[in-house]
């Protein structure tokens, strides 16, 4: 199973499922991340966490703990 945190800067994929619940799930949906969304990893911060992703034209930083629960293909 591939997860979002495994993407390195420059790589992209489609989201298949979001295993998060509650406010984080809601937040991601609001930002346009749902199943089928095309995501590209843009950069990682100096410490490696969080990483920034291009979601529907905007650059959003997401922590490793959360991106581990976003399944991609």
């Amino acid at each position: 199973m591939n997860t979002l945190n495994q993407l390195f800067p420059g790589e992209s994929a489609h989201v298949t499922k979001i295993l998060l619940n509650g406010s984080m799930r809601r937040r991601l949906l609001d930002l346009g991340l749902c199943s089928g969304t095309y995501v590209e990893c843009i950069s990682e911060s100096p410490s490696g966490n969080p990483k920034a992703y291009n979601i529907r034209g905007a650059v959003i930083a997401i922590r490793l703990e959360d991106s581990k629960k976003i399944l991609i293909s």
Partner: protein
Amino acid sequence: MGILNMNFKKTKSSFEYNKTLALAGNPNVGKSTVFNSLTGLKQHTGNWPGKTVSSAEGVFSFGKNSYLLVDTPGTYSLMAQSIDEEVARNFICFGKNDAVIIVCDATCLQRNLNLALQILEAGKRAVICLNLMDEADRKRIKINVKALSGMLKIPVIPTTAKDKKSLIPLMKAIENISDNSIETIISYPAEIETLIKEISNILPDKLCTKHPKRWISLKLLENNSSLLKELKNSLETADEQNLLAEAILKTELILKNHEITYESVNDTVTKQILLTAEEIAEKSISYDEKKYCERDRKTDKVLCSRKFGYPIMLLLLSLVFYITIWGANYPSTALSTFLFKIQVLLEKAFVFLHAPDWLSGILIHGMYRTLSWVVSVMLPPMAIFFPIFTLLEDSGYLPRIAYCLDNSFKKCCACGKQALTMCMGFGCNAAGVIGCRIITSPRERLLAIITNSFVPCNGRFPALISLITIFLASVSAGFFSVPLSAIILTGFIFLSVVMTFAATKILSKTLLKGTPSSFTLELPPYRKPQIGSVIVRSIFDRTWFVLKRSALVAAPAGIFLWVLANIRLGDLTILKYITLYFEPLGKMMGLDGVILTAFILGLPANEIVLPIAVMSYTSQGVLSPITSLTEMYNLLVSNGWTVLTALNFILFSIFHWPCSTTLITIKKETGSFKWTAISAILPTFFGIFLCIISKIVFTFFL
């Protein structure tokens, strides 16, 4: 308005208007610019009633009408989660407004359409203000406005909000706005449409007078309790409210029958809105330059890289300080020489008028001297630092700081956004505390609020700069090195950041235990700040603010101090009694009684601490005017100051209780005396501790 420029100007005006407009949009789309361009000075900022969410209202006229423009907090969607979003949703859907101006970022249209579609679905009269067209042009993004308008069935007006002329077509569209007659703007998958139909059938018409039936059905499916409460409150009779309660129960039954959960419905609905937005965006946007965001990406690659990220942050910080110190030098000297000339004139005038000694004492040596000290020493650095910081903020760099420091904050069980509030604290701690509203988790917000005073605010910088310059950075007698001062100042700021982390960690292990909350951060595109207007507006803003505060705080403090220094009780003046009382504690901390008294008396405003100390020294001895740093050095040294004293003054200045404005703000934001007290005690404790340590190190090893 930038986060640093939270102007508290409350214009007491009775706004007259005949129409109300709501201003809605995602964060970072230039809503504030639209608001400011339309309303100018005729605005009033404050809080939404009963909430700690800032609001802004203003008026402007166009054509035959006078409009009240209400700014709402930036939100990504009407399906609200945080207080900010609730406030926005409630005003847009249930508030008294005649129309909604939906501000969209032309460079990120797809995501912005999410909100726009939801607002249209709610049946609101709306126009789209397609903002930041200059940025879109720069990135060679072409938007087919006509097609977009056709698909959304409402006017779409391209604008560049900072250019007021571009807002005229927007206002014309508002003038001619017609009702929202769109039946179905978003088509959902079959199973959802079935549900909507069934619910619409059981919904009485009485409930659907203010909103479309379809929308109410969708909201019943969303089952958001705070929205349903607002809906209930918007109904006028108890009869209608009962009908609503019935409808809610019936909806539950319908879902049970179909064996579907609210959650899965919400997922499908949200996804469909996003897909519709994607479709509309694809049909109306074309990119001439496939790699339009390449420059931003490359910049971020450098600024947030493993090798350069942290060093660049430190470098930028030192640069900001260097510019502040260097830039403030000349105006400071000029101002103090000029103001001293006026003092001489005043003294002569008082002599001429045969004024009694005590009167000239209070007014000239008390009030005027303190006032002129604050204005000449404190004002220039503050007036320079703020504009620079605002430029940094406008350019979009600050979220990158939060991005790079998030990991460190997470290790202290706090939120990366604390980096942002910390930066705001450099400008003003009170503004930083208010800025903590961007942190949604209450525990993390408290952490950010309590530790905000660990970074020195603008008011403390001038004293820090002066003392660093004359005691720590002086290369040889009389020559003060500016670059060295900047570097040393950066060092102290670095220390205060480290202490912020330490304090956050301690608090999160003791009083504020908990786990880090969810965190997403948007990194907005880099934008070229409008250097000219920002600098001018900021300098005037800050200068006015400092002058006002000197009149309100420094002048009375000067009078108060003169009184304390000249009224004798027995052998000694009151001031002497006070300073002697604090002498033992002061000496233990490597300071003295005068300094501690100055800090205590400086509670209303940090910028008067050093002036009070200087005044206390001069009132007890030589009355020579201090018009240059050299003279201040001589005065301090002749009163027993050593490098250690200066060092500890600097340490205590950084780590001591917040000023009274900040304390009041903390009380307002947290609603608790306990946390306000802790906010005062914690930094003081750090300060005393560090001073004692430094004294020990100095005495025994140096």
